[in-house]
């Protein structure tokens, strides 16, 4: 597979797509960790939701 005279443009665009998608995935994962951790901290300090279920239960099925 030869990319011709414009190889750098092709590689740059694929790399840019990869970077942006990686940033999106990183943002989603980081955000998830952040929120679950804050929920856990809140649960530990005794603040729970009125519906009785601990808010930490639901996310735990994921991990």
């Amino acid at each position, binding site marked *: 597979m030869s990319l011709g005279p*414009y190889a750098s443009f*092709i590689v740059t*665009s694929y790399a840019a797509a990869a970077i942006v998608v990686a940033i999106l995935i990183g943002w989603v994962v980081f955000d998830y960790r952040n929120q*679950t951790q804050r*929920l856990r901290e*809140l649960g530990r300090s005794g603040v729970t939701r009125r519906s009785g279920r601990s*808010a930490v239960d*639901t996310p735990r099925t994921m991990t």
Partner: protein
Amino acid sequence: MTLIDLANPTRFLALSARVLPWLAAATVILLTIGLYQSASAPDDYQQGATVKIMFIHVPNAWLSMFVWGVMSVASLGTLVWRHPLADVAAKAAAPIGAAFTFLALLTGSLWGRPMWGTYWEWDARLTSVLILFLMYLGLMALWRAVEDPSRAARAAAVLTLVGAINLPIIKFSVDWWNTLHQPASVMRMGGSTLDKSFLIPLLVMAVAFTLLFVTLHLAAMRNEILRRRVRSLQMMQASRVAFSSEVGTGSREENASKGAA
């Protein structure tokens, strides 16, 4: 499984947790196939190897419009049906859509450099995508400007729907403006005469990127639900603290008055 069942956020969280791994796996598989196929696709006789940029440019351009469509449906859900997950869906989609639109712009201009000789040509399609990108940024600014999520949701829903009505008008006027100022025809991607060896990888990549969006969107919606839980719990905590301190000062005042008596 209907939309009503999904209205319960807890049920949505449980269901999406079950679906997400499968979606992610399907995305990875399709993306691998698509990348392999686009790598092995032949060179175009006019564009040479730069046609490979199209295999990521076109899916991103498609998604930039598709995501606005998803947000419009969610906005209808917010304003008309008051579906509790609709504003979560609309908010989670905005940054992802903006990212895909940015990619469409970037790859478009990288494709344009060898083809047109400049990074930016005021080509009708690129210009419409640029305006779409500006509208995504405005929408995200609107979401960020307001603290209360439900208030922001209704404002953003109105703006999204107005944008959905306006986008075809903008597209039409930019096309018209472009033909006015640029009578020489710019070289375009093949259109209907697209060869099968390009069409199949393009379709696979489009489906793969759409799946990628669905996966990211579901995950972002989960995060948004959790963020709202954190917010409501924090407000409960704050009100509890305020209440107990109020009680504290009240009793102190009582003591003081007793002491005075």
